[in-house]
């Protein structure tokens, strides 16, 4: 946090100085050769200020949840539910309505769909 404040402060200071210099250079009283130098220098300061800007890269990880897929050995029955403690692939899960044996086919992670309003 301290570092962010410092960066923003430095950026602000340079920006202000740069802007003031720019103002001075366009005032009508200045007609001498310093004009060019001042314009260049004020631009330099603005660019420098920009280079100190903190990198705003806060990436947020999408929420995830784990799904357990249960299948039947004989028919096409397939069921998905949330992962429960103790689940593992090929764990036997009782019998299907067709009489075949149920087992865990896969366990995997999915991203939870983000709500539309942000």
């Amino acid at each position: 946090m301290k570092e962010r404040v410092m960066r923003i402060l430095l950026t602000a200071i340079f920006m202000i100085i740069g802007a003031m210099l720019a103002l001075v250079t366009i005032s009508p009283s200045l007609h001498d050769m310093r004009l060019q130098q001042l314009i260049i220098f004020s631009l330099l300061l603005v660019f420098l200020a920009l280079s100190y800007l903190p990198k705003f890269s806060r990436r947020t990880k999408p929420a995830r949840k784990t799904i357990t897929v249960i299948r039947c050995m004989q028919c096409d029955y397939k069921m998905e539910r949330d992962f429960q403690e103790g689940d593992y692939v090929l764990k036997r899960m009782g019998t299907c309505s067709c009489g075949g044996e149920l087992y865990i086919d896969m366990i995997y992670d999915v991203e939870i769909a983000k709500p539309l309003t942000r």
Partner: protein
Amino acid sequence: MNGAPSDQWSSIYYIVSTLLFFFLILFNQRIQVYFWLQEISRALRRLEKMVNDSKMLLLRTFRENGNNRHDLIQKINELLEFYVISPVERDPFGVIRRLEHLLNLQKDKLREIVTSLAPRADDIMIRNISNMVEASVALNTLYRFTRHYSILGRKTKSIYMIMQLEMLLPQIMKSAEAYFSALKAFAHGKPIGDGIGALVASKLLLQAEKKRIEDDTVIAEVPFEGRRLIVIKALGPGGEVGRPGKIIERIVEEERGKVGRIIMIDAALRLEGEKSGEIVEGIGAAIGDPGPEKLRIEEVATRYKIPLDSIIVKESLEEAITTMKKEIAEAADLVIERIKEIVRNRTNIGDVVLIAGIGNSMGIAQ
């Protein structure tokens, strides 16, 4: 009227600007270093928090598995410094055998410590906790090295040391986050991305009747269109990688070298920009061990001139050690189709075909 004061102001500005200009020329580097150091200490704090959280997670896991010792946290601190000294490579003769020996010792030792620290844990839990400890050790090592170079950089005021560390930070943090989330996946015993090979093997083993277990590895025979498929995978559902190299060698010897083909399935590191769960076929021993297992497979395949096919599923490091993603899990059925294709087209009826599902079998039984 306003000419004089404005002129005065502009000369003050001019002086200030010139001074500032030289100030920046002289001190710009220091300002930069200051920012770098700030960034490094922020990363260090984040790493430290992750290490502490991992210790707490281990502590809780050990407590849940029947450890009431008062000095548990001390034991965990000690455990996180666990190390293996790599074998001498200057004299390369037998270096793989020596490495194999050390790796076996490491595994046994770790399991022994975990068993003593978690007296009520069953076999599956002990394997999972051992995996947790390994991830914590990796995380702790990253933290220790980052701290070391950070302190050294400050002490020596070496801009290059600080710069190097700062440049490496994104990678360090990425690996650390990966290990940290791996730890949480291990605590629940969920399958991880690296287990794709094991998942493929387990799907093939679904109907197998007789299974034998040797060296933490499962071996079973499945008939397929007149061929004998011998499928191997690490023993699950605890976190285990088994000894696929040793077992493949043993089976080939048992069959007196009459193996039509060896097909290996493993997860492989994908490059940035590539898709997770992509399947690629190639040649060679697809296994990411430090060397011993791979060497055994290559040796035995060469000795008996057995074709060695491999199928890899691409994923990132983070995906490999955290809970398996859907797109990776769904690759398993496609891999099985590829295996069947290979067996149909490139082996003869009556052949023995060895199929090795390489990877961590956490959360994947047989």
